[in-house]
C-alpha cells in the first residue's frame, strides 16, 4: 500500500528482537521479533489475550504498572535502545503510544488534555506547531476545547487521544485498537486519519482486532497468538491467506461465503470478536 524509502542507514525504525515478557510467573510474550521500518504502517493482529497490548507496554516501558517485565530480548528505535528505558525516555526518543480504551483525562478539559500530551516535549514553539497540526486534523477538538473530555463521544475521545499523542511530535505512533467500540463510520474516519498522519511522515505500529481495517492500512502485518507470532508477511498477502481470512476476517467455515464476493473492504462487523 505505502511505498516509502527505507531512510538513511542507522535510522531503521523500530526493531524488536527475541522479546519475551512475563507478568510474574505468567509468560505473556515469547520470542517476538518484528520490524517497523521508518515511514511505514505495520500492524499486529490478534484476538483478546494474544499479547498485543503487552507488546506495546513493553515498547513504551509501562509493564511495571502491571507488575510485568521484559525477561529476554531487545527493543530498539533508530539508534536508541528502548528496552529498559523509562517511559519518559521512550517518549523523548519520539515513540508515543495511544493506549487502548482511549484513556483521555476525563476530568480535564480537551485543551488541558492536549497540553498534557505536550508535557514530554519542552520546546514551546514546537508545541504550538503541534497544536496547530492537531486542530487541523481534528477541527472538532477546537470546537470542544473547553469541554471536559469525559463528556465527548467515543469517537471524539479517540480523536482526542490521538491528538494528545501527536502533541509530543512523535516520530512513531503506537496505536492500541483505535477503532475499538466505535461505530463503523467513525472507525473508517479514524482509519483515514491514521493514513493521513502516516503520510505526514510518522511511522505507525497499529495493533488491532479489526483485521479488515488494519490490513487495508498496513504494508506489513504480523499475527500474534497466545504470545507468539504465528504468521507474518506483506499485508496484501495476509489479507488473501486462508488462515487470516478464516480467523480474523470472519470469512469461511460457518460464515456466509457470500461475503467473499463483496467489495474488498467489506466491513464484516463481526471480525473484532471472532478471534
Amino acid at each position: 500500500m505505502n511505498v516509502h524509502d527505507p531512510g538513511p542507514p542507522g535510522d531503521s525504525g523500530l526493531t524488536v528482537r527475541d522479546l519475551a515478557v512475563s507478568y510474574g510467573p505468567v509468560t505473556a510474550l515469547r520470542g517476538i521479533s518484528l520490524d517497523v521500518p521508518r515511514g511505514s504502517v505495520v500492524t499486529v493482529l490478534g484476538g483478546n489475550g494474544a499479547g498485543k497490548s503487552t507488546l506495546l507496554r513493553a515498547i513504551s516501558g509501562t509493564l511495571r504498572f502491571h507488575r510485568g517485565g521484559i525477561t529476554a530480548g531487545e527493543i530498539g528505535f533508530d539508534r536508541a535502545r528502548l528496552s529498559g528505558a523509562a517511559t519518559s525516555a521512550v517518549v523523548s526518543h519520539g515513540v508515543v503510544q495511544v493506549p487502548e480504551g482511549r484513556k483521555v483525562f476525563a476530568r480535564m478539559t480537551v485543551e488541558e488534555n492536549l497540553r498534557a500530551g505536550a508535557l514530554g516535549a519542552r520546546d514551546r514553539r514546537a508545541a504550538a506547531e503541534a497544536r496547530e497540526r492537531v486542530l487541523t486534523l481534528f477541527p472538532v477538538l477546537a470546537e470542544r476545547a473547553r469541554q471536559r473530555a469525559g463528556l465527548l463521544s467515543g469517537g471524539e475521545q479517540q480523536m482526542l487521544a490521538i491528538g494528545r499523542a501527536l502533541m509530543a511530535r512523535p516520530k512513531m505512533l503506537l496505536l492500541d485498537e483505535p477503532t475499538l467500540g466505535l461505530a463503523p463510520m467513525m472507525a473508517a474516519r479514524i482509519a483515514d486519519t491514521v493514513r493521513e498522519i502516516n503520510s505526514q511522515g510518522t511511522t505507525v505500529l497499529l495493533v488491532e482486532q479489526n483485521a479488515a481495517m488494519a490490513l487495508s492500512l498496513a504494508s506489513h502485518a504480523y499475527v500474534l497468538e497466545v504470545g507468539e507470532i504465528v504468521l507474518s508477511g506483506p499485508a496484501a498477502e495476509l489479507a488473501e491467506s486462508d488462515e487470516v481470512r478464516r480467523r480474523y476476517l470472519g470469512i469461511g467455515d460457518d460464515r456466509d461465503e457470500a461475503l467473499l464476493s463483496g467489495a474488498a473492504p467489506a466491513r464484516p462487523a463481526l471480525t473484532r470478536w471472532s478471534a
Partner: protein
Amino acid sequence: MITFIELLVNGISIGAVYALIALGFVVIFKATEVVNFAHASLLLVGGFIIAKTHEALGFWAALLLGLAGAAVLGALIEFLVIRRANVVNHSVLAIVTIGVDIVLTTELTRQIGTEVLALGDPWGSEVLHLGAINIPLARIAALLAASAVIAAFLLAFKYTNWGVAMRATAEDAETAALMGVRRGRVSMGAWAVAGALAALAALFMCIFPTPGLDRTVTATAMKAFPAAILGGLDSTTGALAGGLIIGVTESLVGGYQGELVFLGRGLGDVAPFLVMIIVLLIRPAGLFGTRELARV
C-alpha cells in the same frame, strides 16, 4: 453580635490555616494516593526551624528557611521512603508514614522539651480595632497570607505544566507516564509543596493568641485532618471548604462554650471531629470528593 463577628473572623482565619494543611494532604494524596500521616511532623519541623533561626537571621529569612526546610524534608521522605517502599497497597504506605511521623515527632519533642518557643513574628500581640470589633493583627496576617498562598497554589494547579502533570497523574498515572510525565518528579514535587504549606501553617498556628511553638502543636495540626476528609481527600476545593468549616465551627463552639456548658467543657476541640462524622454519614466521599465508581 460583636462577639459573633469576632469569633467568625477568627474562625475564618484559623480555617484558612487549616486549609493550608489540608491542601498539603490533598496534594500528596492526589499525586501518590498516600494518606500522609507524617504531615503534622512536617509542620513541626517547619515551625521548629523558624523558632530556632529567627533570632540569628531575622524573621523573614527564618520564615524562608523554615519553608525550604520543610519542603526539602517532604521531598526526602518521598525520595528515601515512599519511592523505595515496594508495596502495591497504598494503605501500607499510609502506615509507613505513621512510622515516619513517630520518628520525627519524637526527636523534635525531645529537642523542644517543655519550652514554648517564640517564632519572632512582627505582628506580636497587637490588636486591630474596627469600631467595637477587636481582632488580633496576627489573625489578619494569617488570613491574608493563607488566602494569597492558596490562590497562588490553585492558579498554579490549574494553569502551569506542573499542575497539568499533577492532575493527569492523579487521574491516570499510567497514561500520564505515556505523555512523558515523570512520576517520581511529580510526587516529589507534591511532597515538597505540601511541606512548604505545612511550614507556613506552623507559623500561623504558633503566633498570637497562641503562646508559641510547643510539643502539642502536632495535636492541633491533626485538626486539619478532618478538614481534608470532610472536603473529600482528592479535592482541592474540598480542602478549602473543609478547612473553613472546621475553623469556623471550632471558633464558634469554643466561643459560645458558656452557653453550651451542659455538653461539657472542651467542646471546641471535639466539634471538628463531630462535624466530620456527620458529613461522612451523609456524603461518604466528602463534600467534594470523587465517589469510587465501580463498573461491573
